[in-house]
């Protein structure tokens, strides 16, 4: 993929990123539900995958999402201390910290993969952070780094 093609893609005003969001069942998924019940509007770019706990999210899921062409990845769990499974999010936090540093080290833009905490009462925060993540990914442009050359 040449720079010019990238540039062209960025220019496309109508381009909308597709973002996959892994939400833990007990806090973030519930927070997303609350955003719905409260009718708090946010951009329609995310596709939610429910997981029991942020601790369930294997780095494979994230890397596969990137190499499979999702423009962005969001992983959201309970705030530290709120985990329904006591410490799943703390286990996950170390894993994600390392993964995020590695991704950036290898040259993946920092905003492609976003980790966040949102509680079951934070519908508003969920929407705000999704807006922010969507904005970041949109500014980064399409995730073309992993496009197969024969595609």
């Amino acid at each position, binding site marked *: 993929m040449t720079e010019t093609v990238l540039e062209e893609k960025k220019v496309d005003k109508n381009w909308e990123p597709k973002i996959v969001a892994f939400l833990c069942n007990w806090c973030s998924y519930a927070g997303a539900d609350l955003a719905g019940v409260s009718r708090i509007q946010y951009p329609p770019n995310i596709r939610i995958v429910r997981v029991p706990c942020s601790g369930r999210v294997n780095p494979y899921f994230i890397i596969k999402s990137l190499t499979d062409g999702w423009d962005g990845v969001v992983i959201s769990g309970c705030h530290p201390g709120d985990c329904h499974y006591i410490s*799943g999010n703390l286990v*996950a936090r170390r*894993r994600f910290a390392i993964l995020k540093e590695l991704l950036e080290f290898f040259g993946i833009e920092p905003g492609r993969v976003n980790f966040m905490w949102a509680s079951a009462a934070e519908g508003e*925060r969920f929407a705000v952070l999704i807006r922010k993540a969507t904005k970041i990914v949109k500014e980064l442009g399409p995730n073309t780094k992993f496009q197969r050359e024969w595609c």
Partner: protein
Amino acid sequence: MEKVGAVMVVGAGIGGSQSALDLGDSGYKVYLIESTTSIGGVMAQLDKTFPTNDCAMCIVSPKLVETGRHQNIDLSINCEILNVSGEAGNFTVKVKKNSLYINPDICTGCGVCGRNCPVEAIDLFNEGLARYHATSVKYPQAVPLVYAINKEYCIGCGVCAGVCKAKAVEYDRDDEIVDINVGAIILAPGFDEFVPQAANKYGYGKFKNVVTSIEFERILSASGPYAGKVLRPSDGDIPEKVAFLQCIGSRDYTGEGQPYCSSVCCMYTAKEAVIAHEHQHEVKPTIFSMDIRAYGKDFDKYIIKAQEEYGVRYIRSRISSVTEIPETKDLRLRYETEDGKVIEEDFNMVVLSVGLNPPNDAKYLAEKFGIELNEYSFAKTDIFNPVQTTKAGIFACGAFSQPKDIPETVTQASAAAGCVNQLLYEKRGTLITEKSLPPEIFVAGQPPRIGVFICHCGINIGGYVDVPEVTRYAKTLPNVVMSDRNLYTCSADTQGIIKEKIEEFHLNRVIVASCTPRTHEPLFQETIREAGLNRYLFQMANIRDQCSWVHMKQPEQATQKAKDLVRMAVNKARQIAPIDRIKLPVTKKALVIGGGITGMVAALNFASQQIDTYLVEREAELGGFAKYIYHTLEGGDVQAYLKDLINQVKSNKFINVYTNAELEELNGYIGNFKSTVIYGEKNERAEFDHGVVVVATGANEYKPKEYLYGQNENVILQSEFEEMLNTDSIIKNKKSVVMIQCVGSRNEEHPYCSKMCCAEAIKNALLVKKINPSTEVTILFRDIRTYGFKEKYYRKAREEGIIFIRYDENSPPEISTENSSLNVNVNSVKAGNLSIPADLLVLSAGIVASHEDNEELAKMLKVPLNDDNFYLEAHVKLRPVDFATEGVFVAGLAHCPKTIEDSISQANAAVSRACTILSKDEIEAEGKTAVIDVARCIGCGMCVENCAYNAIELIEDRRFGLVASINQALCKGCGACSGNCRCSAIDILGFTAEQIYAMITGRL
């Protein structure tokens, strides 16, 4: 009269819900009666909870959802109690179920009615800071999620019936009066907060920026009116200086408020101050209080953290008046500091930490249920069993008997359930019905045949998402053999349709695209199970809460998103397989470790239910800590009680007592433990099986190294002093007794409050005055923590002339000896340096836990200790007597310092929790658990370290060597193990790697 295997729980706050869940899980039919329109009580209003800053909604809502759909719990909302008759074992309660004017069986909780209602009223859930509609639900996550019409406000315009596509609005729905037959009753109506009177000195109601603490709680809440931003009501600015005034309506002898201490305000205020600062760093909180009563587990640490990390300022003063500065609406406080200076200071906002009153209908309830109230109009309870009311068969829990915090409420809720067990155990399982289900259709190996049901949800989805288009699209997806759309997929008739379609199309996977699986998955799972499919052959796509409702202005994109979500669900459904929940047998026997009051109460409760119990005591005699206590502050005769307990335990044929005993080995897991005990002087060995463990190992009194203890015979411990007072008349010769509080508590070594020392000191001081009024008694303290009704005795002590002098923790009293007499030099915060001669110096030594002892047992049980070496429960708020390791429970001083009554409550609570296991012949494990592929596993042990439930251990496999092994009984299916596994040897059923792979790949 014949006993009845059903229980009524009145009040469905966190306490009532806990009682109902315990009893429902133990095989009783439970009638849960709530006066408002949803359950959850005050806890659902809270933003965060102390001392962990847990999000209240996050932790309470799963519990509420569980209560709402428990098959043994019959939940009725909007109810009134009309009449009660009968006696313990068999009561009949006449209950009026007030009409909601909306059919709760049909209402889907979508909220279209509320959004269209033209009448606005004050939103009480949000404490008047927002409005709601005459047709409404209390809060968005309410359980049951059923709207109700408030007839008081409703003008009957009929708009709601017009917009309700589900036809749930029924204006002619009548009130219903039913007679409910139960064997026991638990009263958990909670409390009502103190509301400052119209002409109060704090200007509440007059000055906009004076709010109550519960109003402030809503301001802090992320789902509250200001979306969690800390704003002041007068102009919506962030209040930089916020003053919290303590003891509003508590410790108040003026007649405006209540004389007792409300127990929880010091902590909730600290929490509110911390959270306010956390939400908005501009907020600089100041707390005005007389004493800081942080007496619970890890409370003192929280206060220290509030001061040191969040800059919360504490001022020891009681504010007498508040005036408003009209131009700025700021508030001027005038206060006197401890050293007597009068200061005027302006604040942007004032929060009144209001106390807890008995529920407004306490008198009504007492009259109907025939129980007595105490002098403060709370439920009067037994001196040693704080959940037993004055009437047999009727129990009280939570704030109805005394103001208390959430964990104590939850403990009492379980304790009340524990007492019900004793009364009704033989009727367990008599009134609950098991549903008969057809055998499961065998689907393994067959190609997926997927049916997709897409919900319009009235206009909630259909109004924004092109449902017919999504339905057409679903049909084009691989393995989808039918797709259909429904007005309401959750309605009763659609359940019939789904079953028909399963049969007609031979479906072996079912997808519903509608609302959230968090509330509706169990319903649809039940439906497909009734049609013969395994419950786990079901998937949901959330196209309402997470799609149509949040993209209302972008119908095209919302439709595209809905399609994507349906496709992802289909992709996953193609990978799903039936899951069998394994069943584990239960050994119906209990092990209780520790033979103090706590352990004996627990053992007797088990035994009274004819459960074989092994009671293991390290010492030669039963009795534990209570051996040195003669009376409680309230006058209970501890020695008599203890003697009676020991006799009962020794004579009970279901209890095997081992004294001089140590637990040598403990293996196994929930329902199936095996222990070895070495006991007796000859070190005999006993082995036995049991299903549960209760840890009641107690704690020790601190042995001071300070204040010449052990060096001067006139320096003694409070416990020794108590013995002296009760067995000797030597006190008559003493002119002056000085007591020093917080010896070995609240310091660097033991940074916690020992909770009972203040009460002990006052108890003994009063006794001194009783025996010899002329003896001078001086108590040197840091804070007097006579919480709850104990406040009465503090006041009495002051009235009797006992002298209280506060010292600062940085300048503790010093002792000097001249000749043989003692002199106590204290730097009084109020009066400067004082020197007090003392014939007797009494040290209030704290409670300490032994690291060596507890750690050894903790390792054996695979349970954690906290920094102070007390046992750490599964959840500080909602699982106070459970451990994360299932089947193991904690009670009494082993948990943290507490009073005898609290220990007894915990013992009964632990039994109740244990009975949810022991009442069953077999327990069903969670289906969605981790599974190991032993061929891949390399036994590195990472998963073992990451598991919070001790559900994984490394075992030697015949073929593969050391490999991980999942204990299905303990696994909760969180997946923390799987996320880190390098070899992909662990997968999580229901969320397998393949399923998630299928969802994230194959994108258009």
